[in-house]
């Protein structure tokens, strides 16, 4: 031992700086602002939960690299297509062969029965405000297992059982009619859980006799709420709700081989200052930093910013309400076109909408607020998805045109009398605030009788006004449920979509296009339909689209292996830990 001592010292002297560079080399700590809501794959509908869940559970398919259209099999052994005959010619039967010899984290073997159970459970749990409609709609043709009065539909179980069947080593899905985005929905939401584990832990056993008992449960009542048993690369070690953190531990028998990281921690830290400091100290490896905080993280030693990561979202969007609810409404002044308010149907006049559209400084917003990153949106379908039309005409800041529109609006009365109303944005959202301020400044500059008040509101108040259609103009956004143009076309343009419903906007032509596109499985045809839809969108101007945004990821330079998966929850801040590991940063990356 003794003679070796100097050698050891020497070695340590050399190796220590390199090793010391990486703190906690086999633990990855990510700090977010989203706090997980549940670990139940059928309940979750928030990014905080989804990130942890997608590290524990696995879907049948996943997207190849950064692609949003190419799928690779995960728990399925093949991706169905017409070419390989696994999708029937009429587009209504999908045969999905299931991978063999995959084990759950409790050691049991995953079978096609588990897949069937998981899809059924996803549909039949159907909690209010949950994601169940994403699979219910394509597989059984209706949105909810309950009718409008909240009563259970007695045939829901049988409909679901008819749609999802096991045939040998495959699961066969039978759709009432073709549904183009089905595979990408399954890739995001069809997460496989163990039926036997569920039954043992007091959740639904998969039988028809008991499903009603597990329909629309309380969040904490499901067995999957705070425990987990998936096939994924990480097991749940602990969900510490007091400290807002989820600790994941490597699953050593993972079928694709164990992850490089031993442990992954997702912790919610709402205060940016704290996140930044933990990152600086190397206690955190990845943190969420918004556009607002760019300057504070850029250039920190040992920190790497990965810029220009594309997203699947349309945010922010400024919506006009066509028929405002005037009852007890503080946002529309007098409620008449007398210079001290607006009538409830103020925005149903297209010229008013166009006047606002021409008053928005799109380029200035992208330049000043987003540091010039991102491109102006050309339609409700984001640039990352098929169906986006880069050549679609858009609005530009054109105050002369805006003036002209306002002069024509309501037969010249708007220009003569002026107006006053309130634009609301949710408190703390800087981008939405700035948009409201830009609109205010430019519109008020056109005519001294134009008055726009800008007010922040808290989420509860916002929701209150929104649901009652009391907000004259509101700014919201949409993040993809799954990467398909339908997921953007429907909520933004279809008269039954969430936003048009609140706006009281409907255009039968737009409805027809959307209905046709969802049932068509031919890519070229769909593209044409969506192009036409976005032409109508521009013409009708029911809302203002601002930007196809890009984001940046902030991580320590020793984090390796990250590639952008735009559809992954909270991307590019969220992490699929299986691809990551830690190693000293190469010299050139240091600044």
């Amino acid at each position: 031992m003794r003679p070796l001592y100097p050698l050891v010292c020497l070695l340590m002297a050399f190796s220590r700086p390199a090793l010391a560079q990486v703190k906690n080399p086999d633990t990855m700590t990510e700090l977010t602002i989203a706090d997980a809501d549940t670990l139940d794959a059928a309940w979750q509908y928030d990014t905080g939960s989804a990130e942890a869940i997608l590290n524990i559970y696995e879907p049948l398919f996943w997207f190849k690299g950064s692609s949003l259209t190419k799928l690779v099999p995960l728990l399925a052994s093949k991706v169905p297509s017409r070419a390989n005959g696994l999708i029937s010619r009429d587009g209504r039967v999908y045969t999905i062969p299931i991978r063999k010899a995959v084990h759950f984290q409790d050691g049991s073997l995953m079978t096609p029965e588990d897949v069937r159970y998981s899809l059924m459970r996803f549909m039949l749990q159907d909690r209010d405000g949950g994601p169940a409609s994403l699979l219910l709609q394509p597989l059984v043709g209706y949105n909810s297992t309950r009718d409008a009065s909240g009563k259970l539909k007695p045939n829901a179980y049988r409909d679901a059982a008819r749609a999802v069947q096991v045939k040998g080593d495959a699961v066969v899905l039978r759709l009432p009619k073709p549904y183009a985005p089905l595979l990408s929905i399954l890739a995001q939401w069809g997460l496989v859980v163990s039926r036997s584990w569920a039954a043992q832990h007091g959740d639904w056993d998969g039988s028809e006799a008991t499903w009603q008992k597990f329909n629309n449960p309380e969040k904490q009542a499901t067995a999957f709420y705070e425990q987990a048993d998936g096939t994924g690369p990480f097991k749940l070690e602990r969900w510490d709700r007091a400290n807002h953190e989820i600790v994941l531990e490597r699953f050593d028998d993972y079928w694709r081989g164990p992850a490089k990281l031993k442990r992954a921690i997702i912790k919610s830290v709402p205060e940016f200052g704290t996140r930044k400091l933990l990152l600086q100290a190397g206690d955190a490896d990845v943190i969420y930093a918004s556009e607002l905080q760019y300057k504070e993280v850029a250039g920190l030693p040992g920190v790497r910013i990965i810029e220009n990561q594309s997203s699947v979202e349309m945010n922010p969007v400024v919506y006009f309400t066509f028929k405002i609810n005037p009852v007890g409404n503080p946002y529309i002044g007098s409620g008449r076109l007398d210079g001290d308010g607006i009538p409830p149907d103020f925005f149903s006049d297209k010229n008013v909408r166009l006047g606002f559209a021409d008053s928005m400084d799109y380029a200035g917003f992208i330049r000043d607020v987003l540091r010039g990153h991102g491109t102006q949106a050309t339609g409700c379908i984001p640039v990352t998805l098929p169906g986006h039309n880069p050549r679609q005409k858009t609005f530009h800041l054109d105050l002369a045109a805006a003036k002209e529109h306002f002069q024509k609006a309501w037969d010249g009365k708007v220009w003569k009398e002026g107006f006053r109303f309130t634009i609301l944005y949710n408190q703390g959202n800087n981008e939405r605030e700035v948009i409201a301020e830009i609109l205010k400044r430019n519109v008020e500059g056109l005519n001294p009788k134009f008055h726009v008040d800008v007010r922040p509101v808290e989420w509860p108040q916002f929701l209150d006004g929104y649901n009652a259609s009391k907000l004259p103009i509101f700014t919201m956004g949409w993040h993809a449920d799954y990467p398909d143009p339908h997921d953007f076309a429907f909520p933004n343009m279809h008269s039954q979509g969430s936003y048009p419903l609140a706006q009281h906007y409907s255009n039968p032509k737009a409805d027809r296009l959307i209905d046709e596109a969802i049932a068509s499985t031919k890519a070229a045809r769909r593209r044409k339909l969506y192009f036409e839809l976005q032409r109508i969108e521009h013409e009708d101007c029911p809302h203002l689209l601002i930007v196809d945004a890009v984001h940046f990821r902030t991580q320590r330079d020793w984090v390796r292996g990250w590639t952008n998966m735009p559809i992954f929850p909270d991307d590019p801040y969220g992490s699929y830990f299986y691809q990551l590991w830690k190693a000293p940063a190469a010299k050139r990356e240091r600044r």
Partner: protein
Amino acid sequence: MGRFILKRLALLPFVLFGVTALLFCVLQFLSPEMRAALYVKDPRQLSSLEAVIDKYGLRKPVYVQYGVWLKQLAHGQLGYSETAKMPVVDAIKEFFPATFELTCVSFLPILLLGVYFGTLSAVYKDKLLDQLTRFIAITGYSLPSFVLGLLLLMLFYGKFHWFPPGRYGLDTDLLVHGDSFRHVTGLLTLDTLLNGDWAAFLDVLKHLVLPAATLIYIELALLLRITRSSMLEELGKDYVRTAKAKGLPGSMVVRKHALRNAMIPVVTLSSLLFIMLLGGVVITETVFDFPGIGRWGVEAAQQLDIPGVLGSTLLAAGLFVLANLASDVLYAFVDPRIRLE
């Protein structure tokens, strides 16, 4: 005495009932949509807002909701707190020890420093020591805790990286939640010691320094002032003058006579202070991201997490009543002139 205590204890349920009734009265102002905001957070869920409102019975009249809640209470349940993401009972078990620990760490220095310097300040009235004490008291009393807290963070965390916010660092986190860690008291300073882990103990202590310092500086002020003024009052009384005139040494007069009488309001105040701290120090816990009752309560209040608010306020209100009782009893002990009835 016993009857008095029993009588006061009997009041407890009434106060608690009043507290919850008052809260539900305030709720009357809320629309069902506003309360549903707790469950509907994502624009993707907007279309099912009505269903969510129905599911949680938010459209029912408030008194019906109160009845439901009371019935739940009768079964020993306090409901589920969305902000804590756990049942209210668990949340209290989770957050209370943290607050208790912070309170203990801050309270002792407050008491000792407050009484010691308050007395000295009165004895050496208008001397340098008195001026200094009064300066500290008045500045502490005038400094909002969030200003002081942020300043301390700026200096000792932003600049020197000494005292981070939160309750513990990553290593301690893993240790405390590891299988081999024995949880005895729920107080991490004690538990880490009992487990023999010095590093973790120091880490926990490090996280307590700034919030405790903030509390000490700000709450010390009141005790200093009360001790000083109450002491001054006693020293000005005839019996002290007489004693002094009779030739008793000054320090003895102070210790034997004046101090004892002057302690009466101090005892009352400090027992109230202790409980007030226990009820949660909202701002300090928020500023330092310290997972205690106060932070939970205010977070619940902000997000309209009604079960959470009810739970945390019930706890604080219960403690408050007990504290008042305790201070009255102490009062009687210290001051024999007072008889409880």
